[in-house]
C-alpha cells in the first residue's frame, strides 16, 4: 500500500510538470508556434496524464484527458487548424485538466458541468473541422487504454480465457527506424503491449546486425516477426503502433487461424517470447568480449534515453534532474549554516590567539572563508527555483478574470528563468494573484473605453522578474488607465483614512492603496473585492522580507514593483546592542539611523517621547524597555534611533544602545523548541556562537502603541 502511495505521489508530481509543459506549449501555439515539436509536446503531456490517471482509476480525469487528447490529435495530424477559438478552448481545457488533477489528488467535488461543457466544446471543434469519415471512434480506445494500465501498475496481466472459436491470428512484421528510438519509444514496450491482446510469439530478426566494428550505436538493426492470436480486431493491433507509425516499417496481416492450435492462455509462452526478445540484443554480440558486449547492450538504451530528452530540449534546456526530499535539502542548508558560523568562530579564535602573524594560517583561513561562502551559495541555489511555474499560474488567472470581466487581455511574461527560493515562490502566489486580478479588474479599461482612448482594444499585463543586487524584483504593469488619484483621495477622505484637508503628493496618494480598509472597487465583485485589499498584499510581501512600491501614470498604466530576498534562510540584518543583549534588526524595515539630539526629542504625556524628523514627529520606542530587558527607559541621547517603517506605512523610531555590525544572518526558528515570543521574529547564531534574537519590528511597534490609526501615520510621515 505504501509503495502504491509513493507511486501515486510521483504521478501527481509528474502531473504538475506535465501541466506546466502543457501550458507552455499551448501558449506558444497560441502565439502561432504550431510546429510539430510543440504540438507533440502538448500531446505527450496530456497523454501521460491520461495514462497515469488510468493506472489509478481516476475515471473522470481519464475521460476528460481523452477528449482533450483526441482534439489535440486532430491538430497534430493536421485535420484541424489551431485557430484562436480552438486555442481558447484548449487553454480552458488545460485549466480544467489542472483542476481535475488537483481534485484527484486532494479530493473535493468537481464541477462536472464545467468539464462536460468543455468536453462538448472540444467535441464541437472536432466535428466542425474534421471530415465526417475521420470522426473518431474513441470508445474502444479509452477502455482499452484505461484498462491495460492498471494492470501494468499492479504488475500482473489479465489472463483471458476464451472458449470462443472467434479468434484472429495476425502476423506482424515490425522493423523500427532509428527515429523510433530517437523519440524515446522502445520495441520491447510495444511487444509487451501486443502480448496483452492475446497470445504472442515473437522472433527477433538479427540478420542485419553488423559486426561490432561497423555498428552505429544510433542505428536500428533489429526487426521483429510476431504472431498474435487474439479476439481483437486488426484496428486494435494497429492502435498499438499508432504512436510510432511513421517511425517504423509495419505490416499487420490477418491469417486464417490454425484450428488445431490450443485455445488462448499460454502465458508462459508470452513470457518466453518476451525473454527471447529481450535477450536478442545481447545475442548479437555474444562472441564479443565483456566490455564490447556491454556497449552493444547499452547502445539502444543510450540512444533511447538520449532521445527522450530531445523533444524537451527544444522547449527548454535539457534537464538532468533528480528528485530530492525537501527535508534533506533543508538539513544540508542547516549544516552549511553551521559551517559558516563555525568558520567565523574559528577565525575569531585565531585572531584572539594572535596567530594571524603566521602567513600560512592567515591564507588558510581566507581560503576556508571563500570555500564556505561558495558552499553556502551553492546549497542555497538548490532550493532556488525558476519563477516560471508561478508565472504560468498567473496566465490562467488572467484568462479567468478576462473572461469574467469581458475584457480582452494579453499577459506578457519576462524573465521567467529568474530563480528564487522555493518558499518565496510558494508564498508569492497569493499576493501575485491578487495583484494580477487588480491589474485586470481595476487597471485595464473595457475594449470600447480603450478604443475611445486611442489604445488597442486588447489590454496588456506584463509580469517580469529580474535579479537586482542580490534580490529579485518582480514587476506587474498594465497599460490601463492608471490610478485615478482624485478618486483615491476622495475615497480615503470618505473612509476617514486621511483628513479632508490633507495635502498629499502623487506618490503619497498612490500609497494610500496600501492602507488597511482601502478599496477603490465601486461595487464588490467576487474578482477583486474579497474583503482583502492591497494592505494584505503589502503585508504578505513584507512578511517575506520584501518591499513593494507603486508607480502610475494617468492614462498610461500602473506598475507594482516588488523587491524580494532570494532566500528566506538568510536575512540582512543590523546587529545592535540593547541592555547588554545583542539583537538583530531586519535591514529591510530600517529606513535610516540617527543620533537623537536633545533639541529634537520631546516628551508627550507622562511616559511617551517623540522625535522630530524633518518637521514631522515620530514616536520613540525603547526596545530594551519594550522587551523587558530593563525597567527604566533609556536616555535617547545616549543611544541610536533606527527609523523604521512597519506594515501600512507607520513610522517609528526604535531606540537601541549601539549599532555593532551589519551582516547576513542565518534564520533559526524559536518556535520549534520553545514557542512564539512577542516582539521576536526568530533567532540566529552570531560569529561568537551565541544566539541573538531577531527583532519583529512590527510587533514591537504594535505593542508600544495599539492606538495608531492610519491617519497618524500619514501625518507623521
Amino acid at each position, binding site marked *: 500500500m505504501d509503495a502504491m502511495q509513493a507511486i501515486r505521489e510521483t504521478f501527481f508530481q509528474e502531473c504538475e510538470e506535465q501541466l506546466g509543459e502543457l501550458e507552455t506549449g499551448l501558449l506558444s501555439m497560441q502565439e502561432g508556434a504550431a510546429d510539430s515539436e510543440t504540438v507533440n509536446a502538448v500531446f505527450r503531456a496530456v497523454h501521460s496524464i491520461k495514462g497515469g490517471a488510468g493506472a489509478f482509476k481516476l475515471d473522470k480525469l481519464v475521460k476528460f484527458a481523452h477528449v482533450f487528447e483526441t482534439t489535440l490529435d486532430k491538430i497534430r495530424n493536421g485535420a484541424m487548424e489551431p485557430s484562436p477559438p480552438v486555442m481558447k478552448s484548449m487553454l480552458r481545457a488545460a485549466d480544467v485538466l489542472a483542476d481535475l488533477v488537483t481534485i484527484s489528488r486532494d479530493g473535493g467535488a468537481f464541477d462536472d458541468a464545467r468539464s462536460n461543457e468543455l468536453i462538448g466544446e472540444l467535441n464541437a471543434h472536432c466535428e466542425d473541422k474534421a471530415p465526417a469519415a475521420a470522426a473518431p471512434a474513441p470508445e474502444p480506445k479509452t477502455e482499452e487504454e484505461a484498462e491495460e494500465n492498471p494492470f501494468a501498475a499492479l504488475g500482473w496481466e489479465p489472463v483471458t480465457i476464451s472458449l470462443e472459436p472467434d479468434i484472429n491470428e495476425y502476423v506482424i512484421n515490425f522493423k523500427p527506424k532509428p527515429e523510433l528510438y530517437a523519440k524515446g519509444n522502445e520495441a520491447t514496450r510495444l511487444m509487451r503491449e501486443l502480448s496483452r491482446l492475446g497470445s504472442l510469439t515473437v522472433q527477433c530478426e538479427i540478420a542485419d546486425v553488423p559486426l561490432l566494428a561497423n555498428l552505429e550505436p544510433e542505428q536500428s538493426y533489429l526487426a521483429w516477426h510476431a504472431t498474435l492470436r487474439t479476439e481483437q480486431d486488426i484496428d486494435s493491433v494497429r492502435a498499438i503502433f499508432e504512436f510510432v507509425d511513421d517511425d517504423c516499417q509495419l505490416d499487420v496481416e490477418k491469417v486464417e487461424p490454425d484450428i488445431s492450435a490450443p485455445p488462448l492462455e499460454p502465458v508462459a509462452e508470452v513470457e518466453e517470447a518476451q525473454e527471447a526478445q529481450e535477450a536478442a540484443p545481447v545475442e548479437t554480440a555474444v562472441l564479443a568480449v565483456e566490455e564490447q558486449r556491454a556497449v552493444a547492450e547499452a547502445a539502444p538504451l543510450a540512444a533511447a534515453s538520449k532521445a527522450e530528452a530531445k523533444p524537451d530540449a527544444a522547449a527548454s534546456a535539457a534537464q538532468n534532474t533528480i528528485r530530492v526530499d525537501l527535508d534533506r535539502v533543508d538539513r544540508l542548508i*542547516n*549544516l552549511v*549554516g*553551521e559551517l559558516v*558560523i563555525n568558520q567565523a568562530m574559528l577565525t575569531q579564535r585565531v585572531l584572539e590567539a594572535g596567530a594571524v602573524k603566521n602567513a600560512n594560517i592567515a591564507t588558510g583561513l581566507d581560503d576556508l572563508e571563500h570555500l564556505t561562502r561558495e558552499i553556502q551559495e551553492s546549497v542555497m541555489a538548490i532550493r532556488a527555483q525558476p519563477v516560471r511555474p508561478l508565472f504560468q499560474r498567473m496566465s490562467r488567472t488572467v484568462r479567468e478574470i478576462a473572461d469574467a470581466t469581458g475584457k480582452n487581455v494579453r499577459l506578457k511574461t519576462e524573465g521567467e528563468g529568474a530563480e528564487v527560493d522555493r518558499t518565496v515562490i510558494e508564498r508569492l502566489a497569493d499576493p501575485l494573484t491578487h495583484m494580477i486580478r487588480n491589474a485586470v479588474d481595476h487597471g485595464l479599461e473595457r475594449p470600447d473605453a480603450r478604443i475611445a482612448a486611442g489604445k488597442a482594444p486588447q489590454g496588456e499585463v506584463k509580469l517580469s522578474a529580474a535579479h537586482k543586487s542580490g534580490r529579485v524584483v518582480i514587476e506587474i504593469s498594465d497599460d490601463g488607465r492608471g490610478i485615478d488619484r482624485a478618486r483615491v483621495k476622495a475615497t480615503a477622505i470618505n473612509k476617514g483614512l486621511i483628513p479632508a484637508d490633507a495635502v498629499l503628493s502623487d506618490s503619497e496618494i498612490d500609497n494610500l492603496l496600501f492602507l488597511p480598509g482601502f478599496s477603490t472597487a465601486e461595487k464588490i465583485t467576487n474578482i477583486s473585492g474579497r474583503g482583502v485589499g492591497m494592505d494584505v498584499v503589502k503585508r504578505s510581501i513584507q512578511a517575506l522580507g520584501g518591499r513593494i512600491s507603486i508607480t502610475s501614470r494617468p492614462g498610461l498604466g500602473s506598475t507594482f514593483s516588488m523587491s524580494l530576498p532570494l532566500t528566506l534562510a538568510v536575512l540582512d540584518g543590523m546587529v545592535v546592542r540593547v541592555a547588554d*543583549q*545583542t539583537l538583530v534588526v531586519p535591514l529591510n524595515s530600517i529606513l535610516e539611523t540617527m543620533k537623537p539630539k536633545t533639541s529634537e526629542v520631546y516628551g508627550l504625556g507622562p511616559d511617551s517621547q517623540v522625535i522630530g524628523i524633518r518637521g514631522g514627529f515620530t514616536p520613540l520606542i525603547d526596545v530594551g524597555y519594550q*522587551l*523587558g*530587558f530593563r525597567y527604566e527607559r533609556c536616555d535617547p541621547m545616549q543611544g541610536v534611533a533606527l527609523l523604521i517603517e512597519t506594515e501600512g506605512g507607520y513610522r517609528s523610531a526604535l531606540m537601541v544602545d549601539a549599532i555593532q555590525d551589519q551582516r547576513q544572518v542565518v534564520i*533559526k*526558528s*524559536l*518556535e*520549534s*523548541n*520553545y*514557542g*512564539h*515570543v*512577542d*516582539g*521576536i521574529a526568530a*533567532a540566529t*547564531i552570531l560569529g561568537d*556562537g*551565541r*544566539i*541573538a*534574537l531577531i527583532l519583529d519590528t512590527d510587533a514591537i511597534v504594535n505593542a508600544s502603541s495599539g492606538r495608531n490609526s492610519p491617519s497618524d501615520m500619514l501625518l507623521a510621515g
Partner: protein
Amino acid sequence: MVEIVSKSSAGGREYITFRIGDQYFCIDIMSVREIRGWTPATTLPHAPGYVRGVINLRGIVLPIIDLADRLGFSATEPTARHVIIVAQTGKQVVGLLVDAVSDIIAMAADKVQPTPDVGSDAARAFVLGVMAIEDRMISLIALESVMPALVGEAA
C-alpha cells in the same frame, strides 16, 4: 553503587540520575539526547523565570530550563561546573540545567512507587514517582510537565 540489572529483566528501564542541591532526581535515559557543560544563554524577553534563555546547540536553538527554579528551589547561579541535560519529549528539545549528573541506574517499572502525598505543589506536579536506591530516594521527573508549553505560549 550502580545496581546492574540486565536488559532482559521484566519492565526494566534505565534512568539518568542527577542532583539539585541535596536532592536526587532522574529521567528516563531514552529521552536524554546528550549532556553538556553550561554555556551562557541568551535571555528571552517575556519568558517565565525558570527559562534561562536559549543556547546554540550545533545550530538548534535550545531553551534552557533552570530545573531548580522550576521545582520551587531558589534559582541556580550557573557556573562552568553546572550541567545541561539535553532532553527530548515529542518533537520538543530542551536543556535542563542541573547541579551535577551522578549515575545511570536500571530499575524495574514496578519498583517505582507513587509520589508520597506531600504539601509541595511543584513536587506533586513534576514528580511522577519515587524509587529507592541504596540509601537514597530518587524522584522521577515528569518531563512533559517541566517543559514550557509549546503551543500554549505561542497562542
